[in-house]
């Protein structure tokens, strides 16, 4: 089987089928990444097309020594980030719920989370699977895009920290700190939303 880089070389040489193969090879993974990043299927479809159009336009300048997959995700992430920035995505719900029970805030304006102390657990049994999925989805969608980007690339797409640093042109330490912050944000929101809904169901 040809490597991604070989397929791209073929496309540069005029083989249209090679581009079709690349799209087929990455359509599921890239579409999932975009959906999780922008939380909207229609937008993800548009960004998917824009990403491959960009691949097509820049194929001539691609360095064959580099790897195709990080390049593809770099372009896709840039497109998604530009979209979110242009559309000024904001979150409607408040962050009144805090996750920390014992650790507290270490600095002003910052939420410090200790997983051992906050005891994030599986959702209550009475919550349906669909409700649980909705919570996870909302927790992911409502965290800062910079966090979400790193978390999705790392957790869902198995990119190593160093790869992410290269793709996003940020230091390795920044990758780590964003990723840790992403986990903290997810833990807080996911647990907090669960608690909120649980208390609503208790009231009803």
């Amino acid at each position, binding site marked *: 089987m040809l490597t991604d880089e070989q397929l791209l070389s073929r496309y540069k040489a005029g083989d249209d089928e090679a581009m079709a193969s690349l799209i087929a090879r990455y359509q599921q993974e890239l579409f999932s990444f975009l959906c999780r990043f922008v939380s909207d299927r229609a937008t993800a*479809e548009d960004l998917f097309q824009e990403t491959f159009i960009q691949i097509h336009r820049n194929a001539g300048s691609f360095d064959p020594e580099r790897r195709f997959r990080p390049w593809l995700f770099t372009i896709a992430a840039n497109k998604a980030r530009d979209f*979110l920035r242009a559309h*000024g995505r904001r979150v409607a719900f408040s962050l009144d719920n805090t996750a920390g029970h014992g650790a507290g805030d270490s600095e002003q304006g910052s939420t410090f989370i200790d997983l051992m102390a906050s005891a994030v657990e599986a959702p209550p049994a009475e919550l349906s699977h669909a409700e649980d999925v909705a919570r996870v989805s909302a927790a992911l969608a409502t965290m800062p895009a910079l966090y*979400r980007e790193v978390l999705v690339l790392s957790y869902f797409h198995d990119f190593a920290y160093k790869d992410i640093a290269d793709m996003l042109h940020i230091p390795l330490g920044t990758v780590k700190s964003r990723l840790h912050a992403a986990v903290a944000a997810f833990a807080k929101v996911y647990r907090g939303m669960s608690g909120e809904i649980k208390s609503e169901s208790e009231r009803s």
Partner: protein
Amino acid sequence: MEEKSDMNGNGIGTQDDFRLSADDAAAVDAVLEGRAGTAATSGESERESRVRALFAALDRLPEDKTPADLASRTLAAIRADRMKVGLPAATPSEPEPAPGRRRRWIGWKEIAAMSTAAAILLAVLIPAISQARLSARRVACAANLAVYATAFGTYAAASEGNLPTLGQPANHNWLDDGKGQNNADNLLPLVRGAYITADRLACPGRDTAMTLPAAGGGATHIPDESRGYSYTNLVANPHQRWDGSAETLVLADRNPLFDPAASNATPDMNSCNHGGHGTYVLAADGSAVEWEPNPNIGPKGDNIWTAGPAQSQRVAYAGTESTAPGDAFLAP
């Protein structure tokens, strides 16, 4: 606290930053970077198990299924992009017709031009076609008279030079008055003797339907619509013979003065057989069938349609008139 300025409202955290404890951060790194063992290992800390439990929540997100046509749409978009880049900008030219409205390929101007051309063509062609048809009929008529020439010669050779005749009618009348026979009925012996076929009695130049007389011995009369020729008047002048003379005019196209198709005909007209343009005449020399443009072609220029000298006025004949010797009179 890093990149607070980068939050830009993209999600939560516009007021708060989120931090994990150092131990949690180490556990996250251990889980994500040491992913080879995704399952919990015996040496794994409880904190790492907590991290895995948190990530397990992420795993509950369903896979976003790719639309079936996304790949093909993407390829089409790439092709469109390539066309946009590869082709020069469209130059303004003839405007595209509005969608749903087809271009009118034939307008009134084209129709008018074609009609004019067709009219001119017809104006040129119709007379030519008509003329060609007349010419063809004239050729057929001439050929018919040539057959008569042979028939007369054969008949005369077998009957002492006589022309075919039914004999003098009892009333000595050469004009059919409803009781007797016409002069041209004297041609019937040629049919009886099989010198000619009955259809030769009619001129091909005439459009009239033809009723053939019986070919047998019983026929004594040629139906008027089938009478194509005028025969030298053997009632008025019974002494005429197939004498080999070019001045003895024996057979010609039908005499217009006795033709129902030309009720107002005058003696100076040509036969109606060929549109009045001329008359075929066969003389007793049998050498040629002449096309004559006027009827005054008898000996001394007398008129072949009338008894007596040339005359311009139509004469009402009784059928009993005789002719002077040498007076050509081709009677129906």
